[in-house]
């Protein structure tokens, strides 16, 4: 370890752990739900200690029991749940307390921040009233005192102009602001423990950075311990002191952050770490991700075996016959639940060799320089404005929503362009405009040099063969009442394939995406998320398209599943010479899969270029902020980084600022002198090539490269 500061921090945390009395102590917690299929053992023996001021991260994929275990601590599970074990808060047993007694604990000693801040706030009360309620339920406060304290709290969590916002309703707040209100309510009574259940999952990255900052401030202020439940290994790396990895209802590894990230002793943790695309990977050493094959086991009737055995590449006989205990591999080492922990610790099995690295063939087109390849999709000056109407009888136009406001890019053969930006920046509208294949309001869309605007109906139909789409949510984009074979055959049938031919093609496609031909007769609900997304990919590829538009294709999937789908997309691109337009909000994924990247802000592309130059030397302040906001799954790097925190939220596209549209959130603008600021205010910056760069352009008057990753 080369960072003395970090070591200090860890010993500090460890020191506390040894001396102090645990604040929250959970021992052998079991939660079982009765269901028609049998008992679902959602949590099977969770134990941890949480000391004052400590942050414990619980990491796991959906269904691993991480949320259920925290709900059990709060006594918020439904009646059909059987909870056994022990939960002690400062020596007092919480399990078995009546609901009334628990109500005195909830919100006072243990507070909770939920994932979805919209449903966690009551829509019919003002934000101020809700905070006052949280205060007066547990404290004997006068009206004026409560109001004063609530305003203070809003200020603490970083809500600007609390006096005015106090009287607003939740729907008048953005997602990030609502989450701040939730944090304000959580710390209202100086709780000893704050439980955060995926507090930033529903938010954009720059907002996530703001919220994590607000949580840190709140913790510093109250000295509370935080239990952070998340699936995001990046968030935990920078935020937590200790980590517990959960799988199939059990903790499979737990220890200090650095231990888990740098010396994992359980194949599942190793697999998770290997399956996340890294923002900090260099393009020279771009290697395929290592997906964890298979899916988590069903929680009904688990046999006495390691639950991970079916997905584990280093499983031996004993793994099939007994479930490993959570034990340390040796003295001074952190506990993990793996029969082969000693081999992993001793180096008999190299940690980075546990999962075989899949071979992704090189695309023949990669050798060809970009300029020599044919242009597959060209978008020029695309606009999409929506009128904003008001009035019931006589509708009049009161404004314009500039969803897409003049964007241009092109995609060459065999190339992947990543289109990134936060929600509301116009990514999806851009896609829809391209996919409609009609004349846009302004600008043009051309596929293989043919303008979509002047196509006849028949020609447009022909063109649809070349351009296909995969949507974000694989459940929503497959008709639940249509067998998957028929769903895959639909484009074929539409374009006049015979039943015989399309059946053969469906079989071929299913094999291509790693499924079995007999799957064709099943309904989508019988498949897991990753498999469903593979089906969607198969459907998109049915007609041998040239361009596939991928609208956040992996953001709805768990990390370990996501890696498999990303590898599949990579492989198909190489095999079939496809071009992708890859829309995502996750820059790490784009970093991994794309050749070029375009960053969108408020309907415009603010920076575009090849991945290496944009990620290594981002020159638009927004790109810099965006990149710096993404947490890295690497505790050392994460602690060293400084975040560029953007103030406020994405402005509404109905009310675009004059001049540079980013200026009112721009940290660079604040540092400029008056003359320069005027330029930003008055002149809309055009996107111009960076001097000395072949493929890198940016739309900023004062563009300057800054390394942030």
């Amino acid at each position, binding site marked *: 370890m080369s960072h003395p500061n970090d070591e200090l921090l860890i010993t500090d945390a460890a020191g506390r752990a040894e001396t102090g009395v645990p604040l929250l102590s959970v021992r052998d917690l079991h939660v079982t739900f009765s269901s028609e299929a049998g008992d679902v053992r959602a949590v099977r023996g969770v134990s941890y200690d949480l000391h004052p001021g400590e942050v414990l991260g619980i990491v796991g994929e959906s269904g691993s029991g991480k949320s259920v275990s925290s709900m059990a601590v709060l006594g918020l599970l439904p009646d059909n749940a059987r909870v056994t074990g022990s939960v002690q808060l400062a020596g007092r047993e919480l399990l078995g307390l009546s609901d009334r007694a628990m109500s005195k604990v909830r919100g006072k000693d243990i507070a909770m921040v939920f994932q979805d801040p919209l449903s966690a706030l009551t829509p019919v009360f003002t934000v101020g009233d809700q905070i006052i309620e949280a205060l007066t339920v547990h404290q004997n406060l006068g009206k004026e005192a409560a109001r004063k304290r609530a305003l203070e709290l809003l200020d603490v969590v970083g809500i600007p102009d609390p006096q005015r916002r106090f009287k607003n309703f939740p729907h008048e707040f953005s997602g990030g602001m609502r989450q701040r209100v939730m944090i304000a309510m959580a710390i209202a009574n100086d709780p000893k423990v704050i439980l955060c259940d995926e507090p930033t999952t529903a938010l954009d990255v720059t907002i996530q950075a703001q919220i994590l900052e607000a949580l840190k401030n709140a913790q510093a202020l109250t000295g509370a311990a935080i239990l952070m439940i998340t699936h995001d290994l990046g968030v935990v790396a920078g935020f937590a002191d200790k980590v517990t990895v959960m799988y199939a209802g059990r903790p499979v590894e737990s220890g200090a952050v650095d231990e888990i990230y740098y010396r994992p002793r359980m194949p599942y943790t190793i697999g998770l770490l290997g399956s996340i695309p890294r923002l900090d990977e260099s393009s020279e050493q771009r290697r395929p991700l290592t997906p964890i094959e298979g899916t988590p086991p069903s929680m009904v009737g688990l046999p006495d075996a390691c639950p991970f055995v079916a997905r584990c590449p280093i499983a031996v006989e004993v793994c099939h016959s007994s479930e490993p205990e959570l034990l340390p591999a040796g003295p001074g080492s952190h506990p993990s639940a793996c029969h082969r922990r000693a081999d992993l610790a001793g180096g008999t099995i190299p940690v980075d060799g546990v999962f075989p690295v899949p071979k992704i063939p090189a695309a023949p087109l990669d050798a060809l320089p970009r300029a020599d390849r044919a242009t597959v999709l060209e978008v020029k000056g695309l606009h999409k404005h929506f009128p904003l109407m008001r009035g019931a009888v006589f509708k009049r136009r009161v404004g314009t929503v500039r969803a897409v406001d003049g964007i241009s890019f092109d995609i060459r053969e065999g190339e992947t362009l990543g289109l990134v930006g936060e929600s509301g920046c116009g990514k999806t509208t851009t896609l829809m405009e391209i*996919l409609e294949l009609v004349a846009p309001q302004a600008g043009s869309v051309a596929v293989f040099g043919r303008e979509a605007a002047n196509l006849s109906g028949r020609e*447009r*139909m022909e063109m*649809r*063969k070349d351009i*296909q*789409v995969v*949507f*974000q*949510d694989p459940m*929503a*984009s*497959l*008709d*639940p*009442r*249509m*067998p998957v*074979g*028929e*769903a895959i*055959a*639909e*484009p074929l*049938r*539409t*374009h006049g394939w015979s*039943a015989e031919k*399309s059946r053969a093609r469906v079989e071929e496609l299913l094999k291509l995406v790693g499924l079995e031909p007999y799957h*064709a*007769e099943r*309904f*989508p*609900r*019988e498949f897991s998320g990753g498999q469903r997304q593979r089906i*969607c990919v198969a*459907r998109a590829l049915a007609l041998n398209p040239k361009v596939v538009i991928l609208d956040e294709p992996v953001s709805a999937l768990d990390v370990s599943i996501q890696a498999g789908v990303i590898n599949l997309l990579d492989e198909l691109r190489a095999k079939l010479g496809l071009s992708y337009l890859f829309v995502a909000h996750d820059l790490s994924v784009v970093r991994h899969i794309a050749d070029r990247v375009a960053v969108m802000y408020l309907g415009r592309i603010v920076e575009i270029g090849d991945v290496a130059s944009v990620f290594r030397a981002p020159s638009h302040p927004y790109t810099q902020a965006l990149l710096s906001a993404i947490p890295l799954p690497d505790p050392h790097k994460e602690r060293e980084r400084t975040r560029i925190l953007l103030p406020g939220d994405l402005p509404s596209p109905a009310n675009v600022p004059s001049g540079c549209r980013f200026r009112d959130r721009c940290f660079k603008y604040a540092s400029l002198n008056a003359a320069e600021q005027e330029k930003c205010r008055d002149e809309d910056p055009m996107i111009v090539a960076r001097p000395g760069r072949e493929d890198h352009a940016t739309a900023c008057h004062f563009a300057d490269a800054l390394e942030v990753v």
Partner: protein
Amino acid sequence: MSIPIIDSGQTPDVLGEGPAAPSVQGGRARLVWRRFRRNRLAMVGLVGLVLLFVFAFAGGHLTHWGPADNDFLNTQTGPSSDHFFGTDDAGHDMFAQTVSGMQKSLIIGLFVAALSTGTAGLLGTAAAYFGGWWDRAIVWLTDLFLVVPSLLMLIILSPYFQGSNWIILIPMIALFNWMITSRVVRGMTLTVREREFVRAARYMGVPSWTIIRRHILPNISSILIVDFTLNVGAAIITESFLSFLGFGIRTPDVSLGTVIDDGSNFASTDQWYLFVFPASFLVLLILCVNFMGDGLRDALDPNSTGGSAR
């Protein structure tokens, strides 16, 4: 259009007949049929319906009495070997009357249900899917029919149809029966239309009517099936009511509705057989249709356990 039209007691055609050609692939149709066959009650309903058709169209051969014949020697007699279901006060053979009534009621019930559910499905989905002027025009038409008192209209219209074939009853009843379902269907289509799989199909180049038939109708099929099964019974009752008003089926022709209507006064007397026999056939018919409807709904719905292999 595309509702489970169970015509002539044959295999239920899942996709039905619509403006677009029925699915050629047969993949889903085969799967749905297999799931339907696994459902025992649904098969009971199907066989029962076939038997009812056989009874209605061949049952007349079991007795030498015709529905209009009067046996003046045996008026108001109970069930016997000569008159299986007894006779009424005019000496009509109740068995012959039930058989003859069944013929018309089966046709009226099933066809009215098919027509009115079909109209509701067609107009409701079209309004929601196409939106714009289509939507406005169809909703306006629906509301118009809702506010016009249907009974009054039928009475006003009846002189024009006096003496015409009873088949005219089918469109007449259906015409005033589709509106509420149509509005419900429109609402459901509005939500299905926004789902990504519909958008995916559109970007594949699938024609609108095919999207409606292939994606939207199966996803709202539950409401259509329930509506269809309810309509069968309602149509038979409405028909008897119209016949009472003097248009539709008139003596000497009979329908199950009129036979039940005539017999209903005797339900709790010692001439119970005048009511119980025809009424139980109505109950049987509706039960069969309901069983089939439930089976079809489960077969179409992948979330139900009824159709999946055990």
